[in-house]
């Protein structure tokens, strides 16, 4: 995700480029498209209109918002904004970007975002968890026939959401966001500088452009420049994986199955995985604390899966950062961060697509609400409402996964206990329910008590074995 232009060239050229006003380029909000038949489920947002009383009415034009980044977060945000009557531009630098990503989406995402089912390449209904000593446990027995984890190709999903946003009235711009100028005065506009990529020419030829907007939604991912512009603070991340094409008969094993490998050899604080994609598998791993050794972890993952991917050819090698906790500052003025830019990736499972799209949508909803469908100027308190809503809704999920990561990814013995626990049906049911529907549902208290006792038992046994292991020298 390296940027193509340096900030110095941007600074020197700033004097030359004319400021192009935004008004007059877009259709008026009354021409908003109704949802097309491509949506499997009609949009069911019923927004409550509550304007910020202090904000002034906009003089004869709708609210202008720029969404930087056209991934799931940006696409969802742009669609909701456009539908809500806000003038939206969506800036995306690579329209066919093949993101290195697990590509797993939960069931609730398909329903909530009305994703057509042909977007999903594979339905994973079986997950195999493999402990450091290769104890293998199959989870997924408790899944009902209509439940699955959807595997998608990111370029397909992202393009679909972007196209839907464009149909709703957002203007899609293929360009590289360079810089954000903060407003001089309180109500002043934000000035965005970007390189417009001319269609039909090579990506080298680009045109420097500027646009003025009232608010900015930063959806430009882990290396977010919008975040840098508002001094958002930093976070830690790492990930790497390779795509491998494996022989047909081996591919059958991965037809509906994904695998998770845990162990110090594979990752000291995360896990290695083999996820099936449309015609190949993705073998990868990630780490935060030992980024320099990622190649070794990758090799170890391939070793553990060796028998099952034997004869396979590596077709692509990629690495990409993913955040592991939210940025210290997610909103400043009329700029809000969503998705990976804000750091909404869960611990333990590393899931981010759903939360990116959901946060994009929630942020857009807050903007539409605060501006009374684009009629009023918004201010920071409207954006903070989105933060509050998101934090309230998903904080339990994030916290539970954080606790799980702290307890079970601590050491090899904890991972052994973890895999042992996964064999329990109650655990499987709770895990899948909370993953697929994103609700931390408290189960039967008696079962919970039994689960707690079993967990402690597993951890104690694994640690006891660990003490024995330390006495042995092979």
């Amino acid at each position, binding site marked *: 995700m390296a940027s193509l232009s340096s900030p110095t060239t941007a600074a020197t050229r700033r004097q030359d480029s004319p400021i192009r006003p935004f008004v007059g380029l877009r259709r008026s909000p009354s021409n908003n498209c109704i949802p097309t038949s491509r949506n499997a489920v009609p949009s069911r947002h019923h927004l409550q209109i509550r304007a910020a009383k202090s904000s002034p009415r906009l003089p004869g034009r709708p609210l202008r918002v720029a969404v930087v980044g056209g991934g799931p977060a940006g696409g969802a945000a742009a669609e909701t904004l456009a539908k809500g009557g806000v003038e939206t531009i969506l800036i995306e630098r690579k329209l066919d970007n093949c993101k290195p990503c697990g590509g797993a989406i939960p069931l609730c995402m398909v329903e909530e975002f009305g994703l057509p089912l042909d977007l999903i390449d594979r339905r994973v209904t079986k997950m195999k968890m493999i402990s450091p000593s290769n104890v293998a446990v199959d989870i997924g027995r408790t899944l009902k026939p209509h439940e699955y984890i959807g595997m998608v190709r990111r370029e397909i999903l992202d393009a679909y959401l972007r196209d839907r946003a464009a149909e709703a009235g957002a203007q899609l711009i293929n360009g590289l966001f360079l810089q954000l100028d903060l407003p001089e005065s309180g109500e002043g506009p934000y000035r965005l500088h970007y390189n417009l990529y001319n269609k039909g020419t090579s990506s080298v030829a680009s045109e420097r452009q500027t646009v003025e907007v009232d608010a900015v939604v930063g959806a430009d991912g882990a290396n977010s420049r919008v975040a840098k512009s508002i001094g958002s603070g930093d976070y830690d991340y790492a990930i790497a994986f390779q795509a491998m094409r494996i022989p047909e008969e081996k591919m059958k094993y991965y037809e509906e199955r994904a695998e998770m490998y845990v162990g110090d050899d594979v990752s000291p604080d995360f896990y290695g995985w083999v996820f099936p994609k449309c015609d190949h598998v993705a073998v990868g791993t990630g780490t935060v604390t030992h980024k320099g050794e990622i190649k070794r972890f990758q090799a170890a993952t391939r*070793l*553990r899966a060796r028998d099952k991917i034997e004869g396979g050819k590596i077709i692509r090698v990629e690495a990409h950062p993913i955040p592991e906790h939210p*940025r210290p*500052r997610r909103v400043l*003025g009329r700029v809000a961060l969503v998705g990976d830019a804000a750091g909404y990736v869960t*611990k333990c499972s590393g899931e981010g697509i759903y939360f990116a799209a959901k946060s994009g949508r929630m942020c857009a909803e807050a903007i539409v609400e605060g501006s009374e469908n684009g009629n009023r100027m918004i201010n920071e308190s409207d954006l903070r409402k989105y933060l509050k809503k998101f*934090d309230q809704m998903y904080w339990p999920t994030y916290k539970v996964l954080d606790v799980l990561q702290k307890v079970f990814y601590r050491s090899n013995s904890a991972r*052994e206990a973890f895999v042992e626990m996964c064999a329990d049906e109650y655990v499987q049911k709770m895990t899948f329910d909370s993953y697929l529907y994103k609700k931390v549902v408290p189960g039967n208290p008696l079962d919970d008590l039994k689960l707690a006792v079993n967990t402690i038992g597993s951890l104690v*046994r694994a640690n006891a074995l660990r003490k024995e292991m330390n006495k*042995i020298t092979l």
Partner: protein
Amino acid sequence: MALFSPIPTALSTLSSKCSLSTKPLFTLPNRRNLSLFVTRSSADKGEGMVGSAAVEEKVEKKKESPSPDLEEKKLEEEEKEESPLDSNGAAVKVEIPKFQDPRWVGGTWDLKQFEKGDKIDWDAVIDAEARRRKWLEDYPEASSNEEPIIFDTSIIPWWAWIKRFHLPEAERLNGRAAMIGFFMAYLVDSLTGLGLVDQMGNFFCKTLLFIAVVWVLLIRDNEDIEKLRKILDETTFYDKQWQATWQDDTSSDSKK
């Protein structure tokens, strides 16, 4: 891993094994250990050499005939991997010795082989599992579908774990508590004149007793004090990261 002679390490394993337990069952794995070390040629793992761009990796399996002193044991499978992109230009051979144990059958421990008389020797099962995990930690293996590992530590009954791990620790802690208790009772008696019965009725002494018990339970090694502090930090760290955005709440309004 051992680039120098593998024999001394095997010998030390033999001796350490004997010191751990004198049960005759352990001599069998030791002999196998020896042979495994002898046949293993150590080298850098070729997989670590894979660089960028598309690379083709071919995996070849080679079976080797059993070494002479293992007539009744199973065939050892040794896999060799060749990486054409080795930095030295030479093909690097890697052999990963697979974990083998005559009592490890079908992906789990065959409890019948652990029987001592008519009872199962659970200590030996625990030892065997510890060794297996240690082996796999040092030499990670490919997980295989043909021989799935289905061992679960919960088949070992709870009392075996307690007898082996909890009781010695409990003895240590109780001993500490008793020594501290005796000494503190003597000290308080000499300072205040309160006998043991009177001390039990005094609130301050009861508090001291409570602190002493909690201390003995939580802090067993010198490192535990640091560990406890770190755990306390850890439990609140993630919350702080999420709350960070709300710290700005009051100052941000002026920044518009």
